[in-house]
Every structure is written in C-alpha cells, then in structure tokens.
C-alpha cells in the first residue's frame, strides 16, 4: 500500500507544485492522473519514483516514509518501480531485447532467466519478432510497447507512466492503454498521468483529477 499524506512539493525557486496532497494507491489499482498542464501530474510521479522528494508531508510505502529515505537506498527502491515515459527513453543503439533486459541486468539476474523473462515480456506486448530491431527501426507505437515491456519485465510493485501516449495518434493511444490495462488485469499496480481525458474515460480505472497542485476528485467516490 502506497500513501501520500499531505504532501507539499515546492520546487527550487519556491513554486508550489503540490499542496497537501493525500492519496492512497491500493495494490492492483489502475489510477489515471488527469488535470491541466502544470497541475502537478508529473510531480506526483516523480515523487513516487523518488526523482523528487516531498518538501512536506509523507510518502509512505508499507508504512515506511520513503520520502526521507537515504540516497543509497534509492536504487533498490527504484527497482520495484517500473517507469514508462512519453519519450520512452530507450537506448537508441541497442536492440529491443537489450533494452528490455536492462532492468534485469541491473537486478543481477542470470542469463537464462533474463532471456526467458525478456522474451515473455516482448511476447506480451506483441513484439517477439522485433527483438533484434533497434528503436529507430520501430514505429512510435512499437517503441512505446518496448518501453512498457521494459517497465514490467522486472515485475515491479508499482508501474508509473507519464503521458505514455503523448506522441501517439488516437488509435495507437487506445491500443497502448489496452496494453496497460492487460498488465493491470494480471495484478500490476499502475499510476498513469495523462491530459487526454477522453482516452482515459474509455478505460476502466480510478480517475484522480488534479488542479493547481490539489486533488479535486480522488476517484474513490468518497469525496
């Protein structure tokens, strides 16, 4: 269980990106973070990945305040968080296989296990036949699917995605969202930030609406 408890984030320069945001992320949930540009969607994801730290308030994972976690423990924490980016952040000079294998290499798995898991992940995103291709030889949608395969291959306890369909047309966007949905159905907890309300509304999940650093509606039906 992951909980943001009255989290305030001030960026350097004093800009208040989040103000006393409280949010529970339950295991197995699929959460869409929506809101206008600058609402604080990416900031929440960056906090969950410990790329940024809360200025005030607590970020609790299983009761532990990871917001104050020492820097040397961050790598181990991040290995439990899969990340998907709008620009997918694949390594351009490596084939799809190597890109997907990277989290497993970092985790120190053996070669056999890596091959098995990478093939399974590529199979799940429908790219088993493209494992030798470098990202540039793949379409935008395929690149993003490689990105998703990389994010799930190490079986993270949380997957975060920041505008994963930002570069894709409507049809491809829906297809990518359905890929996320399928992973969520097998138990991966997800937080996806998107400004595309129409797209998000076509996928069943919890919708959390942000506005100027505050939660308007946390989608739990309680507010």
């Amino acid at each position, binding site marked *: 269980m992951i909980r943001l408890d009255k989290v305030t984030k001030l960026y350097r320069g004093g800009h208040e990106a989040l103000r006393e945001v409280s949010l529970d992320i339950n295991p197995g949930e699929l959460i869409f973070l929506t809101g206008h540009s600058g609402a604080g969607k990416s900031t929440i994801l960056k906090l969950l990945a410990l790329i940024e730290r809360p200025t005030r308030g607590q970020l609790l994972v299983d009761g532990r305040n990871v917001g104050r976690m020492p820097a040397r423990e961050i*790598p181990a924490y*991040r290995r439990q968080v899969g990340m998907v980016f709008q620009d997918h952040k694949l390594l351009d000079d490596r084939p799809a296989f190597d890109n997907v294998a990277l989290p497993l290499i970092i985790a120190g798995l053996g070669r056999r296990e890596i091959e098995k898991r990478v093939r399974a992940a590529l199979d799940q995103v429908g790219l088993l036949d493209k494992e030798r291709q470098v990202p540039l030889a793949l379409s935008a949608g395929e690149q993003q699917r490689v990105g998703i395969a990389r994010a799930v291959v190490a079986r993270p306890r949380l997957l975060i995605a920041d505008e994963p369909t930002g570069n894709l047309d409507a049809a491809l966007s829906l297809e990518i969202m359905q890929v996320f949905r399928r992973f969520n159905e097998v138990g991966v907890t997800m937080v996806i930030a998107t400004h595309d309300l129409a797209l998000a509304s076509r996928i069943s999940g919890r919708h959390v609406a942000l506005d100027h650093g505050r939660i308007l509606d946390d989608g739990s039906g309680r507010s």
Partner: protein
Amino acid sequence: MAGLFTHQLRDALATLGRLSRQPVATFLTVGVIGIALALPAGLQLLVEGGRGLAGSWNDLRDFSVYLKPGTGIDKARELSASIGGHEEILDVRLIEADSALAEFGADPAFGEALRALKENPLPHTLVVRPRPEATPEQLDNLQAELGARPEVDLVQLDTQWLMRLAAILEVLRRGIWIAAVLLVAAVIFIVGNTIRLDIQNRRQEIEVSKLLGATDAFVRRPFLYIGFWYGLLGGLLALLLLGIALLLLQGPLGRLAALYGADFAGFGVGLRTLLGVLGAGVASGCAGAWLAVSRHLSAIEPRV
C-alpha cells in the same frame, strides 16, 4: 563467491568487447599509453645496463699501492693481509720487488737499463681490486687511508672518470624518474579524459540505468574496467616496443661492451621491468578511470 567472480569476469570481458568495437579510437589511446610507458622503462634499462657495464670493468678499477723503498717483504705481506681485510676490497695481490724486476728485465726496452743498476729500484707493490659494489667515494676514502700509512709511498688511483660516470648515471637515473612520474601522470590524464568523453557519450544510458535502479557501483564498474584494459593493453604494447628496441640495440651494445672487455650480460626485459611496466600501466589506467568516474559520473542524475 564463484558466481560473483564469473560475474565480474563477464563484465570485464564485456567492456573489452566494447573497446574492440571502436578499434581505431582504442588503438590510438592504447598507443599513446604504450609509448608513454615504454619511454622511461627503456631509458631505465639503458642506465641499468650502463651501470652494469661500469661495474664490470673490474680491472679498470684496480689500483696500485707502491710501498716506500726499503720496506721489508714481511712488512709488505702484513700490509697486504691487513688491506685485504677491508670490506670494500675483493682481493689484494702482492708484487714483490724482485719479481717486478724480473718482469721488467724480460722486456728488451727496459732490460738493459735495469741491469746497469746495482740495486733493485722497484718497490714492493700491492695491486688492490675493490669489490664491484664499492662506490667511487668509498674508493677515495680508501685511497686517503692507505696513503696515510707510513709504509706507503704512493697510491695510484684514477677515480675521477669513475666518479664522473657515476654522477652522469645518477643524473640520468633521477631524470628518468622524473620523466617516469610525468609520463605516468600523462597516462592518468589520457585515460581520465578518454573515459570522461565516454561518460558523456553514454549519458543517456547512465541516466536511464539510474532510473531503472542501477547503483552507483553498477554504473561505475564498466568505466573502471575500461581504465584497467587501457592500462593493461598499454603496458603490453610498451613491453612489445621495448622488446623491439632492445632487439635493434643488442648488436651495437654487445660490440661496445666487447670493446671495453666487459662481460656483457645483455639487456633483457627482466621480470622486474615486466611487472613494473604492467603494474604502472594498470595502476595509472585504473587511477585515470577512477578520477574521471568520481568527477563526472555523480553529476549525471536522471532528468525527467
């Protein structure tokens, strides 16, 4: 433990593979390192060889102690024994006045003149051979000490040229040390700069790896291995260059040594040189990598 080792070995070989994929750049870096290491090592070998040669000119370091005329043979033997007890001295040979005369008398150039004399004009003489490791300073002190003895008339020792040679070799030796330190520093900078560029080129990979939970040690490791390989390959190249240079010098040096009647053992690359060059290469390669990594790697944090 064994698993960790094979892991490390695999990583090391993987970085070697990475180097082999950019053969030209790798060769240039390794070439510069090799030359930088070969230079001081080669000069060092030459100077060591020179010292060996100087030390092996034993008969040139022999000196004669002429006793005062009229010193008895018993006294001469006593003196010979006492000088022989010195630690700088290898051997003392007594040439008795009579046998010196006989030797000279056999020479047609002197024979006539000597036979005209009533008495033997030659004194007893001691020919002293110092130990090879005795320094010119020690020989000088020895000369002064022997010259002060009442029975001794004259000590003939020409250490001037030996002192000069030793002084020149000492200057060279120091110079080589300084050059070696500077060149090793140069190797550290070369490796450091090469790896700094490598880090810049791999910025994206480093950022992504950190996002995916790579530790600093994980990100650092391949660069340290690259430094290690640069150092090792540079060291091997330096040894190869040394070997070729010595092969080319072997003939002329042998002839030079023969001219001086020195027993010339040759200038092989000994185990010490081998380990020294490889050790210096690996150490400076790793040091350069470490410098680059600690200065430039921590600055790369993922930006999202």
